[in-house]
């Protein structure tokens, strides 16, 4: 029987198997940030264990960082201390750190791929559930807890039971205005937030084959929102082209050898998955969430389901929405374009293309937060910043920002935010804040209109504009 992409990468990293128990999996790259690493460093120090392979670790500061005035000392004392501790720990243990202000600083899942650190066939872990992002390269990448961060520090390995395999296939052509974010929100709305638990997911079919690396990252990023530890897409020419020439990418002959190996990774035709789902691209429309988990999503033209269930009603109560109603026309005061899901250059190009020549609605506070210093520089270089400035938008500095209400960027109590981030949990963007997840195009349109609109209707009148998942 043939092997899946996941099998091939997993099997190549098994050091040993405990009889009737887990396997020892070797980790190629370990990414760390300020929030989930300090306790792991402390543990090693207390137990007098050295960091085993510091050269395979890369650190960045992202969760706690302000997105304004990054050149000034951080005001919040606890945040400042956590960042200082990251710097100290990295220095002490010879770990490369792209700290605040560094030209490579950024959200861990934006920074590593754009530097060519993320490569097909690797195993990558990070104390962050959205590590699944890196699966876009045909990488086994997943989030881990802090105890596991300490284990990787100590041994460059983890003890794991091999997950089951799941494949989601989407064939056909996406319609205008449907972006990778809509594709993944659609999938999660169909299969639910826990159908991927215990599985590693592979995304297959025309839709993903035709997607850019940025789009693939958006999709894989949200694998955890359906419970899957990770999501992968087979590496192909799009992948190799993206990696080629990046800072830490293999060069010259080594690159060619790697490509030859990477080409052997895609799932064999006769491989069998434990579970499969199939969807038709034509059925997907721009999506919005209406509840308090990412599975509670509807098409922009749709209506909130009429489900009788206590948890469902609790969610609607929190959102102050009613069963059976549409979200179109809802006034929105906050818009956030950013996070490890949608803060790459392509996302800002889409937003700028829509915004160009328009004005932000007066009632809207809109935060545009690039995923990294490199994305920020590119936004300026491509002239997108001028478009945003002219339209009354604020381009902030890189970081996780309003995705998780840990830094200064919080949505006020009771306010709705149309957000390109990944989680609409209660209080995720600030205490009492109400999150509506959407694509960068839907977010940009909301910011311009000051309310939710049916973007598909607007696009029908603007045939010259093509917004597709390229």
């Amino acid at each position, binding site marked *: 029987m043939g092997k899946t992409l996941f099998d091939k990468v997993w099997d190549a990293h098994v050091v040993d198997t*405990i009889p009737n128990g887990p396997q020892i999996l070797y980790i190629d790259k370990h990414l760390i940030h300020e929030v989930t690493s300090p306790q792991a460093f402390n543990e090693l120090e207390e137990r007098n264990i050295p960091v085993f392979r510091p050269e395979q670790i890369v650190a960045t500061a992202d969760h706690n960082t302000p997105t304004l005035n990054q050149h000034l000392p951080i005001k919040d004392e*606890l945040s400042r201390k956590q960042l200082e501790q990251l710097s100290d720990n990295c220095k002490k243990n010879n770990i490369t750190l792209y700290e605040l202000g560094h030209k490579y600083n950024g959200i861990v899942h934006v920074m590593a791929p754009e530097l060519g650190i993320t490569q097909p066939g690797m195993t990558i872990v990070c104390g*962050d559930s959205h590590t699944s992002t890196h699966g876009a390269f045909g990488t086994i990448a997943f989030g881990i*807890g802090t105890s596991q961060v300490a284990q990787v520090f100590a041994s460059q*390995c983890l*003890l794991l039971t091999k997950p089951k395999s799941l494949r989601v296939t989407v064939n056909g052509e996406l319609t205008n205005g449907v972006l990778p974010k809509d594709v993944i929100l659609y999938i999660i709305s169909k299969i639910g937030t826990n159908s991927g*638990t215990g599985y590693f997911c592979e995304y297959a079919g025309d839709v993903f084959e035709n997607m850019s690396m940025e789009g693939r990252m958006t999709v894989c990023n949200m694998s955890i929102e359906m419970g899957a530890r990770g999501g992968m897409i087979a590496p192909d020419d799009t992948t190799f082209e993206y990696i080629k020439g990046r800072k830490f990418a293999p060069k010259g002959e080594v690159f060619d050898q790697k490509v030859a190996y990477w080409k052997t990774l895609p799932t064999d035709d006769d491989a069998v998955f434990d579970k499969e789902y199939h969807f038709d691209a034509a059925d997907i429309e721009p999506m919005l969430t209406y509840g308090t988990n990412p599975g509670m999503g509807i098409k922009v033209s749709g209506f909130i389901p009429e489900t009788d269930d*206590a948890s469902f009603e609790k969610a609607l109560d929190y959102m102050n929405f009613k069963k059976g109603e549409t979200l179109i026309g809802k006034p929105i005061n906050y818009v956030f374009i950013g996070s490890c899901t949608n803060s790459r250059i392509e996302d800002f190009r889409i937003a700028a293309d829509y915004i160009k020549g328009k004005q932000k609605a007066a009632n809207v506070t809109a935060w545009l937060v690039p995923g990294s210093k490199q994305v920020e520089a590119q936004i300026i270089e491509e002239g997108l910043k001028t478009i945003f400035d002219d339209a009354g938008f604020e381009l902030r500095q890189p970081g996780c920002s309003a995705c*998780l209400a840990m830094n200064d960027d919080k949505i006020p109590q009771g306010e709705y935010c149309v957000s390109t981030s990944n*989680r609409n949990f209660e209080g995720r963007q600030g205490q009492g804040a109400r999150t509506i997840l959407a694509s960068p195009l839907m977010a940009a349109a909301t910011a311009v209109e000051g309310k939710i609109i049916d973007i598909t209707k607007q696009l029908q009148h603007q045939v010259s504009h093509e917004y597709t998942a390229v």
Partner: protein
Amino acid sequence: MEKFKTLTSTAIPLDIENVDTDQIIPARFLKATNREGFGENAFRDWRFQKDGTVNVEFVLNQPQYEGPILVAGDNFGCGSSREHAAWALTDYGFKVIVSSFFADIFKGNALNNGLLPVQVTPEFLKKLMTAIKANPPTKITVDLVAQTIGIDGSDHTESFVIDAYKKSCMINGYDDIDYLLSKKDSIEHFEKTLI
């Protein structure tokens, strides 16, 4: 890590599905650099009203319910990988979480902190919820050695599954680092074979 074999105690019914780790410990409390003290802010935004007063409606604030066993709705611990959620629960005093389904990362984090996740069938979860709500002093027995969970004074009992390796870690108070360090030679040997 603390050892765990059996536990008999009253339990707290948290009858909510999809409890994510942002609810267990909101991100604004993740700025500490040690593992202690997170219990104070466990379920912070459910335990307290927006004005800081105690939310008497929330089950953890209802005096009839107490004990180190939390019985929770389906898909407990979904969302963020923050191990702070497991630390918050143990620091608050929980030793066992019962649910019909756990998110992967949370389950691993719990086991790495001596917090036992017990996965039961949806039917048994319903029985537990009903029994505890009808009579809060109801005692539940969790026996890790026998891998069973039962409602005392009734014949309602169910067995649960746990990885044999993780079970022995919990019973003996070992953690994965000890094991991995003992395998250093194999790891170094493996590194030489990498492409």
